[in-house]
């Protein structure tokens, strides 16, 4: 690691002092995110706020020369510790000031944006132009680019394909500014991810800033359609709903469809309430069976297109649900049983606005511990669900909750299982540490037993090792792109 004082002086030559901080209070505030409890991440020695590609380029070249490790951060909202320092001496490059929407191409339906642009900015822009964008379940203040580069699960992750990214502009530690996809030609615009050459956009996706800093991204926009509708069906068990979702997605009846178990629906209502504690019914020992009058779970489908098509889609989806033991749940019934779910789902699926609040935090009610986030084939989901109940019964305390949705059309499903900790960090530290430790080995077990792959990288280098030559090639690429290993080394991807 190089001399941080010299590096700091160097940075001040091209970035003004008010955007380069060594102030103690500033540094401490960049040392934590939701992944940090019960510990904290490392305190960065410097935080920089670049405002242009040129500043990012100068910054990375300086960091490379001075051997100063860099943690790129879109807006900093992260639950997996991917945008906070983990190693001594890692500086944070906070990209929030690069927050411009540079181009909205309504003809080809995409927008070129900087990494500091939030989902909320994107939502406003998209709505203004009659579009909807892929909205991940991250918070509205999170970076669209950073989220899009981490394979988001979201409101459009089925019919419209799960990958919202088309092409990128990336700055590497050597100072190269690379554009991928059609943008690589300079005159072809940002419209296409694939050209006659290998796809480099894919290389930078899920690289978590270890190969360079993404300074622009072309993000897909989708036509809202003449009609947008939320269809809710209620279910008393999981197998038929998985079948239902598979069918309506494969046959393009719905844009997307998500199943939420009953505790998750209660959680939605809780998010909008001002209650201090988790309700007793959520804490009940038997988490599998809901209280009377509450369905085991609901499936929320987004339908859009021409009015006649949406009418037919709705009718078809209801028929398919009934044939499998599900039932249509009218809006009023949903509002009555799960008022929060109605508000959440309508905002998220129809308005294309991330609901307030972000679901990652519950603050006064409980601590959120990101649980398993995995992708698996549809049939494996049913096995995973059984495994999950058993695991939770053995290792965790109520409440826990899960949701599933088709991720890669219906070839695989995204499965999220979350444990809420109803207590303070002081009191539940040991429990939290216990859960974190069991999660670590769990991903390996799930891969082995069910072919389930972790959805998002969790700082576990042993996982890449499982990929054999694939991982080796990635390491070789990393060595070429970042020979001094300055890009986010503490995240442990390589």
């Amino acid at each position: 690691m190089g001399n941080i004082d010299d590096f700091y002086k160097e940075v001040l030559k091209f970035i003004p002092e008010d955007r380069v901080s060594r102030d103690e209070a500033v540094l401490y505030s960049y040392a934590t995110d939701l992944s940090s409890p019960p510990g904290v991440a490392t305190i960065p020695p410097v935080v920089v706020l670049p405002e242009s590609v040129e500043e990012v380029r100068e910054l990375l070249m300086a960091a490379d020369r001075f051997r100063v490790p860099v943690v790129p951060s879109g807006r900093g909202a992260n639950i997996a510790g991917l945008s906070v320092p983990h190693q001594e001496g890692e500086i944070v490059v906070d990209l929030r000031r690069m927050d411009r929407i540079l181009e909205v191409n309504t003809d080809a339906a995409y927008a070129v944006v900087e990494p500091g642009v939030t989902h909320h900015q994107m939502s406003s822009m998209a709505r203004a132009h009659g579009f909807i964008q892929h909205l991940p379940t991250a918070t509205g203040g999170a970076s669209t680019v950073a989220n899009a580069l981490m394979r988001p699960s979201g409101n459009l992750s089925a019919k419209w394909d799960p990958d919202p990214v088309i092409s990128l502009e990336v700055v590497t530690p050597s100072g190269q500014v690379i554009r991928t996809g059609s943008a690589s030609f300079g005159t072809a615009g940002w419209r296409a991810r694939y050209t006659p050459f290998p796809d480099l956009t894919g290389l930078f996706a899920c690289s978590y800033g270890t190969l360079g800093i993404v300074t622009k991204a072309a993000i897909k926009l989708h036509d809202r359609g003449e009609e947008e509708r939320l269809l809710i069906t209620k279910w008393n068990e999981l197998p038929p709903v998985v079948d239902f979702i598979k069918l309506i997605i494969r046959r393009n009846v719905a844009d997307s469809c998500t199943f939420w178990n009953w505790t998750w629906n209660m959680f939605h209502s809780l998010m909008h309430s001002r209650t201090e504690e988790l309700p007793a019914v959520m804490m009940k020992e038997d988490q599998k069976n809901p209280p009377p009058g509450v369905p085991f779970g609901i499936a929320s489908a987004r339908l859009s297109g021409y009015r006649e098509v949406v009418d037919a889609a709705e009718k078809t989806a209801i028929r398919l649900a009934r044939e499998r033991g599900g039932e249509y749940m009218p809006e009023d019934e949903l509002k009555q049983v799960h008022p929060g779910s109605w508000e959440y789902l309508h905002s998220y699926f129809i308005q294309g606005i991330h609901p307030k609040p972000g679901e990652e935090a519950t603050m006064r009610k409980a601590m959120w511990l990101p649980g398993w986030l995995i992708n698996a084939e549809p049939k494996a989901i049913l096995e995973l669900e059984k495994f999950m109940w058993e695991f939770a019964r053995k290792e965790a305390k109520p409440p826990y909750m899960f949701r599933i949705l088709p991720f890669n059309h219906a070839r695989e499903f995204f499965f999220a299982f979350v444990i809420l900790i109803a207590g303070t960090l002081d009191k539940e530290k040991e429990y939290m540490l216990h859960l974190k430790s069991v999660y670590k080995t769990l991903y390996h077990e799930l891969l082995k037993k069910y072919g389930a792959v972790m959805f998002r990288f969790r700082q576990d280098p042993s996982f890449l090792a499982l990929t054999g030559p694939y991982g080796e090639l990635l390491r070789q690429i990393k060595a070429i792109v970042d020979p001094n290993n300055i890009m986010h080394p503490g995240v442990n991807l390589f």
Partner: protein
Amino acid sequence: MSNGIKLHERLYRFGTMCVRCEGCTYGYKNADFELVCPIHKKYKFFTYSLGGLVQLGRALYEGRLGLTESVSSVVYSCMSCGACGEMCAEVDYPDIMQLQHELRARLVEAGQVPYELTAVIEGLKKEDNMLGEAKADRGKWAEGLEVKDVTKEKAQVYFHAGCRYSFDKDLWPSVRGAVGLLKKAGVDVGIAGANETCCGGRAYEMGYQAELTKYAENNMELLKTAEIKTVVTACSDCYYAFKVLYDMTGKKGDVEVFHISEYLDRLIKEGRLMPSRNVDMTVTYHDPCHLGRKVEPWLRQKGIEEGQVYEPARSVLKSIPGLKLAEMKRNRANSWCCGAGGGVIDSNPEFTIETAIERIEEAKATGADAMVTACSWCRRAFSDALEASKGTLKVIDYVELVEKAL
């Protein structure tokens, strides 16, 4: 777990649970996600947001960080406008503002306060007002008004002018007008003149908690002696202190507290005041933080319906014939602060002016002829900003506009 500063467990918990979503910095749907946090806009780093502040609170509580000048500069940079608490759906405002108040109190104990604020507090201790003016001059604003002095004779309603209105001559017409309106409506009103003291609210927000207790006791003693059960004030900071802070600290008792806008709304609805003259202009209304989102969560706990606190002021404006109200994009809970709060007008007046100019520009964008406000501190901030920027937008006190309509 704590090896650091004293902090309520719940406040510490916020620090362990913040997801850094930055919901605290921008207005929600109705404001089209525009920034509402002045410090975040100015200082740019995440640190300068509620999210950043709770991280500092956590580090201080855990003893990883001390009460240093660096911490002080962040904590005191904030205008305490309360937008963050309103926007962050995970916390309730009284709690999260409490975090800032507690951090500031600890900084006061550690002697880490911007010196400009210590000067203000010295002035307060000596002269019982936030402007450091001679206390004997406090009642001069009311000279010639022929209004009762509650320290000498009985009155049903006590009109509390507040420090800024009492000493800022430019603003005297507002308080004189307020008393005039009350008298016109037949309200048995009195003032305390030179015997009026500060409410203690601004000192409390600067971290001087003992001053709140002292002035709450002074003021409540005055009311008790005068056998007064109704307080009306034109100052939104005083309103917040009497209505919320005194209640939170158990000093309020059974006294009813009104802002002049609320009281005028009542008088108009009762038919005791009838705006009948045409006021042919378009105005936009600036919601003072202390008359809106800073009191709203507390009132909600007392059973007031969410959002209702913003309505009386608008209701009065709507009752004026010919007057058109054009709302700014950031209004009510999403309102952009004038920049004068939290002691910033004293410690960093340039920042106040910068913040006020942004609001003035937003007001101008509505096409309104004037911006109306109902707070002495907002008025001062806007007037200073207009002078500094050579702006031409009219800023009118609420009361003056009602006077025109009668």
